[in-house]
Each structure stands twice: as C-alpha cells, then as structure tokens.
C-alpha cells in the first residue's frame, strides 16, 4: 500500500516498503538529495528533516511512520529560491566548508531559532549536540545563529 505524505508542501506518494528509512525515500524516490545519509545510526544529524515541524533524523524514521504527515527538508527552507536568514548569515560568516553537514545543521538551527528567538551562546551549542561537523570547528555556525537572533 502506498505511503502518502506531504513533502515541502507537495502531496507525495511512496511505493517503498514501510520499513524503508525515510532518508532513502526522500533521496532515491523523490530525488531530494539534500539530506545526507552519513552515519545511518541517528548520531551525526546530517539527515535531519522536520516532520510536522519537529526535527527528526530521517535515517531512523521508517517511511510508514510519516504516513499523512508533513515533511520539510532543507530544500523546502528557502522559499522562492531565496536563502532564509540563517542561510544568509552562514554565507556571510564564511561558515561552509565541505558542506555535507549543513542540510541537517540548517534544519536543526532554523527550527531552534524559531523556538528560541534570543538564545544564549550555550543554548546554541547545546542545540547542535545532535549535529556533527568534521570541517568547521563549529564556531562560525554558532556565531551565525547568534547573529540571526541579533544577540
């Protein structure tokens, strides 16, 4: 039985096996390759997407669990092709290196900043606990997030 879901505002139907990880449905079936399968054990956060507005690691989320739910991936965070304020600040801070972690970072931090508009530095660092980065040493990502919040 097909699995129905909304992805970035669009109704989608997946023919995948119910236990297929959501990350594979997004990437292989819908060709949304933004979210990255890096560890496939829910540790690195590079595959983070929003499910009904809450961040989830798509590698540990079976496709059947998102039946009828609304999914937003990194591709759906820049309306009309325009960078959101966080993405803009990340560009300004020259934060990006290899870029593999950023789809998850951007999803996590966009959600976090919506929930916590004026965070402390330690709150931002804590919010990034589930998102590993191997290139940047995090500092510019934290600085960009604080900049969005104007703190």
């Amino acid at each position, binding site marked *: 039985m097909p699995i129905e879901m909304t992805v970035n505002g669009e109704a989608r139907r997946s023919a995948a096996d119910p236990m297929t990880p959501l990350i594979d449905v997004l990437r292989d079936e819908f060709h949304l390759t933004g979210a990255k399968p890096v560890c496939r054990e829910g*540790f690195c956060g590079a595959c983070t997407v929003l499910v009904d507005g809450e961040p989830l690691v798509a590698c540990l989320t079976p496709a059947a669990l998102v039946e009828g739910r609304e999914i937003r*991936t990194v591709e759906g965070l820049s309306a009309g092709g325009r960078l959101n304020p966080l993405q803009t600040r990340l560009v300004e801070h*020259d934060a*990006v290196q290899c870029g*593999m972690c950023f789809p998850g970072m951007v999803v996590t931090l966009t959600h976090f900043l919506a929930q916590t508009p004026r965070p402390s530095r330690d709150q931002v660092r804590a919010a990034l606990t589930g998102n590993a980065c191997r290139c940047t040493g995090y500092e510019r990502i934290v600085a960009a997030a604080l900049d969005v919040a104007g703190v």
Partner: protein
Amino acid sequence: MSVDAVMEFRRRDAGDKLTGRTRYTIDRGAPGMLHAAVLRAQVASGRLAKLDTSKAAALPGVRAIATAADAPGRVGIGIADHSLFVVDRVRYVGEPLAAVAADTPEQAQAALEAIKVEIAPLPAILIMQDALAPGAPLIHPEWEDYKILLEGGARAGNVAWEATAVRGDVDAAFARPDVRIVESTFRVGRQNHMAFEPRAAVARYEEGRFHIETSTQVPWTVRNATAGFLGVPASQVRVTVPPVGGAFGLKFDVAIEPFAALLAKLSGRAVRLVNSREEEMLTCLFRENAEIRIRSAVTPAGEIAGREAVVLMDCGAYGGEQIFLTTMTAHTLGGNYRVGASRLVSRAVYTNTAPNGAFRACNGVYNTFALERHTDEIAAALGMDPLEFRRRNVLGDGDLGATGQKFEAEVLRPMLERMEALRAAAPPRRQDDERLYGRATTVGTWFVFTGPSAATVNMNADGSATLVTSGVEIGSGSMMQGLPQIVAATLGIQPEDVMVRQADTDAAGYDVGVGGGRQTVSLGAASLQAAQEVRGKLLAVAAQMLDALPDDLVMQNGRIEIAGPNGAGFSIAEVAAQAQALVGPVAGTGASTRKGVPSMPGCAVGHFIDALDIPVFAVHDCEVAVDPETGHVEVLAYRVVQDVGRALNRSAIGGQIQGGVVQGLGYALHEEVSIDADGRIRQNGFETYRVPLAADVVPVEVELYEGAPSLGPFGIKGAGEVPILNVGASVACAVANATGARVQELPLTPPRVLALLLGRQPELDFPHISPRWDDNLLRPHDQPT
C-alpha cells in the same frame, strides 16, 4: 606587473551547499545504473583456499562479478606491493575478495552472501613489536619480488621501507663532557578522518574507455592506479570529480574506483559503488599509529648538541602513504630547533591490519607531539623555562635542518613573540575549583609539498574567464576562493567572473592532487602563469585598438585603459571580443612544479624529497583544566600564530584554522581507534568513534604571520593543512604541566589521564627499539646499496 589578489571573497558554493542542491558523488547516478558491493575478508591473515562465485552469478539481478583474475596489476608508493583483490593471501580484516554489480543494492548484497569462500587461517601480526620480533612470520613473503618504483629505501621482511637522515657526528656530540642526555619515548594511536561523504564512485565504460566520477583528492592518482590494477593504458581512464564532501587525506589515494570501473566494463552498464559507514570505518586509511624514541644531548646553557631518534610507523597490510612518510620525519621531528648533529630513522612496518594512509599534516602531528613533549622534558631536566628554551633554540636564519637544508629568515622567533603578546593580553582562565590548571606554548614545522600542476585559462568574449585545472574542491575553499582570486586579480576582472572547471583528467593536465597545503600554491602558480599569458595577449590587442604601447596600459576593474587620468580604453569584454575576431579565442597555459631544494650530500637516504621547498611554521598555545576526579580535560583557551606567507583570503584561512584545531583536539583528547585480538577495528561508527561536537570546542584566537619567504605565487603558503599540526603537542604539554605527569601517549582520554594521575600508567617500554641507534637499521646509513 603589480596586481593584488588579496580579497575577502565569499565562496560561491555556499548557497547550494546550504540549500541542499550541491550534488556530491553520493548524490549522483545514471539511467540503468547498477549497484555494486564488495566482498571483504573476515580474518586478518590466511591463505585463500577457495573462492566460488558460480552460485552468486546465477542469482536474479546479478550482472557482473569481478575477482583477482580481472585485475592482474600491483600498485603502490615506492614499491608495488598492493593488488586490488586478495590473490592468494589475506592480510587484513576487510581486504577485498570479490566485487558484484546487480540491479539493486539488495541483490548485490545477496550475491555477496552466495559467494563461497574458504580461508585457511595463518598467524596474524597485529602490532609492530611482533612484526619486528626476530623470526616473525613475513606478512609479504614475496617482498623481494615486488617491483621497486623508487630506489634507495632499505627494505627487508616486515620493514616495508626505511629512510634515514644523518647530519654531523652524533657520537661525538653525545660523548661531549658538557652534555647531559635526555631520552623520551612516545606512542600514538590511529585517527579516523570521518569524512562525511564516504568514498563513492560512479563508473561507466564507453567507447573503449573508463569514465569514473569519484569522491577523491587525487584524480590523476585514481586514473593511473586504476589503470595499473586493471592492466590497461592509463589513457583509457578518465576521472572527473564532483564536489567532495570532506576528505582530510582519506581520499588521497585510489580507493574503490577500480571496482566500479571493472564492473562497468564487465556489465556494460553504469555502476555505482558507495562505502557503507561500517566499511569506511573498517578500511579507513587512518593516520597511522606510531612509536617514537628520541634522545638528545644538551648543554647546561640549553644548546642541543646532538639528537637521535627512531620512529616506527605502522603501514598496516600494505605500504601505501607511510612509505612516503618515512621521508617526513626528517622535516617534522627534525624540524623546529637548531640541532648540532642528528640522526633519524623512520621505518614503515607491515602488520596484518587495515592499511593506513594520509591525514592532514601526516606524520607531523605525532612527531610534533613527541618533539614538543621531549623539548619540555629537556627544559625540565635543565631547570629552564620551556618558553625560554624555545626562544633560544627555534630555527632561525641560516640554521640547518636534518637533511642539511638551510632555513631562510627569522620566522619562528618573531612568531613566538607574537604569541607571548597574545598570552599577555588575556589573563589565564582559572576558576576557583579543584581542577588542575596548565598551559603550554609549542612550535611546529610543516611544509608545502608542491609538485607538478597545470592550468589553462580561457578568456571568453563576454569578459569572463574559465579556469581549467585538475584541482578538487574538498571543502577548503581553494577552488572557490584562492584560485579565482588569483586569476581575477591578474586579469583585472571580478572573481565572480572566473568560472572554475571541476577536475577532469580529459580536460586538464597532470596534478598531484589536493593535499599537503599545495593546492592554492601549486595550482595557484600554474593559474597565475596561465592568466599572465592571457593578460599579455589582451594587452597586445588593446594596444593596437588604442594605438598605444602595452606598457602604457592598465588592466583593472574590467577595463583596459591608457594609464593616467581619464585615459581612453575599452572594457575587457570588448578587447576579448576583438581578439577573438582578429586572432581567435584567447587562452593561456601555465605549469609549475617543485623547485627541489637539495639536501646536503649524504644526509638523506631512502627519501622521496631532499628538503623543504616551502617550510611553514606554527606556534600554538593552549590552556587546560584537568578534573582529578574523572580525568576529564577541558580546553579553556586556544591560540594560534600561523605562518601563511601572505594571506590571500583571511576569512578562508581563519575557517581552516578553527576547523583544523578542532580536529586536532579530537585527536588529542578522545578520538581513539583500537584493534581487537582478531585484528578488527573496534570503532564501527560515530557512536563508538567520538568526534568533537559543538559543546566540546572553544573559539580559536588566530593571528596570521605574514612576510616569511615563500616560493608560492604572491608569497603565499598553504594554510589548510597546518592548523592541526601542533594541537596534540599543545594539549599534551599543557596536561603534563597541569598534572606533573609524564604524558607519553595520545589521546588523553579520561581513563588514561586518570591512570597518569594515580600513577597507574606504566612507562612505555619498546623492546623492539634498540638502545643503540645503529642497531635499528637494516643497513648502515652510509652504505646504501
């Protein structure tokens, strides 16, 4: 010609990377593509008795199976000791036995399970001490039959390569009546790169040639090594490289590309092969584990009269990068300080473990740890302040390196002064708690491995330029910032108007690859030369158009004009269009290679380079707090003064320093690799291999030191490699200072620190390193074959 390529130019790939549009190799495919998988040995040592693929080949969806019979060649560095598949003998857990391509990944996995394998176990040698024991079984019994690719290294049995550097009379220095001898021993484990994009490739076989899209740092190495394994001319292999999702040295060698290529040829279809994270962990080309013994003869005034060292580096089952790295000890462990006479031997040792490879500041990271801790032990023995000892002894103008290289200019001493100013500007961070506080300042010596690079600049009639090279963007930004800046500055156009072609071995000339801090330097030199040729051609055409002499023209802000106020002129686009109409499209080519600084005659034996073309220095300072209850080390502050020659893009360099230091903090404190009794790497993912997270790190205070001499274009030096160089050293020295314990090993995990604090950490003992330096050598240094 005077142009300024220094810019604060933001990278053009950031937008796509932030919106998920960038297509790395793992995001790519082709219509009708097959999925590949590799069957890997599950024992560390054994004789392959049977490999039967007939049942697997008959399974649904299976399109091709490749085995050793399909890949007759051997490749390697220095010696060709590595075949693509196990031929007769399994040498490590994870070694490839066969590769399968099928319609789906599940079918490929099912086929692996249907291949019948019988391996008769042989004794496995998992540590260097056992590999070097008298009468140890040979990991490569046929070592004498391997083709030698570079003459000069001593080899025998389980010693894959031995390189020596001897300068001066060390025996005489140690025999001086006024010296005291300080001896130290050190050991470090392996480090996993944990590049987020695993090694991945998509291969096709078209028109009698292989085309491999791959996540690599070294397209030309992949081209040549794939051809070598498969026994075909290298011209039959084309390699292209999409954006690479992290590398750090992991992708500085051929990896899984030949499997995909072979299966594409056998099946006639495009083939995708992507390592699982478990495969990445099992077959990581780690930073090697190493064991070091170093002795110095020092005078009461702190002069280093003599020094000797033995460095053992574990190359794993095949030689690979470690064979080259035996050269590096002379320049890393042999760097930093003025030494009267020295003798150093580095030995790459075979074990039945996964092959090691390259990792950011290869060899330098642990040798700098050893050298700096040894330096602190010397200072303590002399009762001298360690900073004062360094001030007196760091390499300065005219000092000799370990292979007799003469260093130019005072660089490290003024860098130390800068660091002292930084330290003085901020009080030590101490809290009123029970923790033990310490700090340390260390120095490090690195180099840019230049080597051959080629570039072409095509000037387009619309005023833009296209830069064609074999350079790869691995995240460091050199293809996004440094190179377009160099071309734009030379042509007087905006860096946004310089397109940078992704690496394609069919389009651009040979390049060593991105690594060792060379990309912006070597490709930069080639790109500068190519752009200068274009500039000259455009100026000549503009001179005709303006009825002026080329020397009277200025080329800037997108225009070529007669110098002076209100000078007449044309836009560069107009000149380029006119040139295209008159003489055809304008292009320029450039090439560069290493200068090849010689060693002093007789100093270096078995070395791949004699001396350093472009030395790079670093001074780091670290403050730590150690919890005596748990052994946990918190880094409180970190400062870097880095020799960059000239900073083309300060922001880009700053990002490399923050990232490199944090990678070094992981190495220093918690990134640990261990190997179980069966030879299997224990850490199989992010949960068991702990990389630094946001909560672990501090903002690194950075000062760029400019003005040191460099052969690089515009006086630049590579800046991305070196930031990790002395992090392990700085943390280790700071922890030793905080605790008073003799730090001899990294990483400083809480259990290890606690054992040090409780006096339960036994002193290192290396029975396989002879106390007499000469006894460690396969043959005397002065009797090369």
